[in-house]
């Protein structure tokens, strides 16, 4: 669809060492803008660790993450977010006691120009900024199909909708790159189908590049164009889903070797 593709994210020699454990070893990967790529691997392979290094929760022991000419290493998470990378979490991390609308509106805070003093005395400029945020938040909830739940507490939503809200909250920062950490975890086949359609839909609508971690092979094989496979911290394969499926190393990692 894009005539001109541009490297959005490039990861070079990324390594994370926790004490004596090498969680991720020399990981290389790159994403072109508009890609929908997947990262798979058995439990404990280091997938989430890679996400945490990209978004600044962990500082890499070695290697470099470059996003649109910015070196991300060592930046705090909120600054990385402000460059246009947002994420969801493996175990949903919503603001449970806040309303659905407020959850999304938290993401608009970094774009707010007004000072806290103007919010305190409700200056006209602030009041109109608040109104604009509220409307935009509501529009976003409509786009993801959560508008009628906007006043509910986030923790009272059913599981599938909590996942959806977490994605909506990540979209609210207007990301260029969206990282989804096991979006289909704990979902039944029907919910998983919905989610796959939903990911395709937001990708088109918000013009996103998506990088996702998933255990559910159906999701990865169904929507990803490029897949990296990890095992014990090392990337063992990369390619299109059909190639990955035939790769003996991948089969070995997932199913074990014949003796």
């Amino acid at each position, binding site marked *: 669809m894009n005539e001109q593709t541009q490297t959005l994210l490039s990861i070079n020699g990324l390594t994370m060492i926790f004490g004596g454990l090498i969680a991720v070893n020399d990981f290389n990967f790159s994403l072109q803008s508009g890609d929908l790529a997947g990262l798979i691997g058995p439990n404990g392979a280091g997938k989430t660790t890679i996400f945490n290094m990209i*978004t600044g*929760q962990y500082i890499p022991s070695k290697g470099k993450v470059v996003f649109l000419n910015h070196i991300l290493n060592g930046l*705090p*998470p*909120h600054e990385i*977010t*402000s460059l246009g990378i*947002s*994420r969801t*979490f493996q175990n949903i*991390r*919503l*603001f*449970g*006691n*806040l309303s659905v609308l*407020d959850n999304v*509106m*938290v*993401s*608009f*805070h*970094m774009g*707010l120009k007004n000072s*806290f003093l103007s*919010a*305190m*005395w*409700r200056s006209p400029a*602030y009041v109109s*900024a*608040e109104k604009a*945020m509220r409307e935009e938040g509501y529009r976003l909830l409509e786009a993801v199909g959560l508008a009628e739940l906007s*006043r509910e507490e986030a923790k009272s939503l059913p599981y599938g909708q909590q996942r959806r809200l977490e994605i909506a*909250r*990540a979209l*609210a*920062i207007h990301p260029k790159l969206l990282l989804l950490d096991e979006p289909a975890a704990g979902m039944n086949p029907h919910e998983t189908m919905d989610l796959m359609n939903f990911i395709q839909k937001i990708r088109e609508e918000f013009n996103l590049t998506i990088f996702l971690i998933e255990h559910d092979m159906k999701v990865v094989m169904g929507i990803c164009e490029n897949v990296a496979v990890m095992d014990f911290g090392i990337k063992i394969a990369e390619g299109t889903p059909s190639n990955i499926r035939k790769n003996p190393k991948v089969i070995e990692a997932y199913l074990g070797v014949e003796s």
Partner: protein
Amino acid sequence: MGKRDYLLTAILFVILLFGLWIAQNYLNAYIIRILNTAFIYVIAAVAYNLINGIAGQFSLGPNGFMALGGYTVALLMLPVVQKQQVYFLTPLIWPFSVITFPSYLFIVSLILGGLIAAGGALLIGVPTLRLRGDYLAIASFGFSEIIFVLANNFIPLTNGALGIKGIPEYTNLWWTGGLAFLTVYLICSLVNSSFGRALKAIREDEIAAQAMGVNPFRMKLMAFTLSGFFAGVAGGLFVTLISTVSPTLFTFSMTFNLLIIVVLGGLGSITGSVVTAFIFAFLQEILREVEAPHTIGSFTIPGIPGMRMVAFSALLVIMMIFYRRGLFGTKELSWDLIMNLFKRGKPQNE
């Protein structure tokens, strides 16, 4: 919807003004004193709730900030002649020994008291709020103890344990009531703004809040400094209410009182703190009874000072067992809620 709320708030404000006028002119001095104390508690408790309840950062320092504000106002407002009498052992150090604010600058001295307290908050906030966890509690507790020790020992400034007497009694219900209303309005506006949402997000899940672009350090520092500012103003009002200040006025028991108010009202509920601040101020007087000596039949129980705090502590324990979220939880008393009380039974549609 919004219009009705504005109207009702305006009506409440007028009723409050009228109530204050009646109270100031017709009630006896004892009741007025309790009301003044209640309004000061409102200011301090609402400010304390901002950092403890809304931002979820456990601070134990409001007594230190109130002391900073109180001493600042005392030193600025005390007449020079009175200063020479009070500091008869060790003379007061220079700038304060010659300056005295005229009465119309009372508000300026309150603001300066708040600013000094906010400066203190900034001082301990900058190193501790970068960390996640209970460091703030330890550091703020230590800070308020340092203020206490300084107040006792930095005699050329504070007159040590003797304290400062004869501070002009500027505080009346107009000051306390007006500033309490203003504080509640300003902090409620903040809490309901994008800044309040960011603070609550940090309280709910700091990692997720930061991943959504909220700078936790800046937000927490803002809340803590603001909280210090209003605590300082409350301290300033308090010393000009009772016309004296000494180190024992702002000990840790002040923080404990505020903690009781904030927890009983509901951590995170500003209106809850307002309601319980009033309840607390009146209960404190009513419960004087338990400290007085009693005679039951031929048996005499001697008065035990401090029994009131035992009663409050027991109340707190009972609350924690049976009603952990406090009076209002994190909910606010809103016009919607009050209206719904009247409409109960009818199907509710927005």
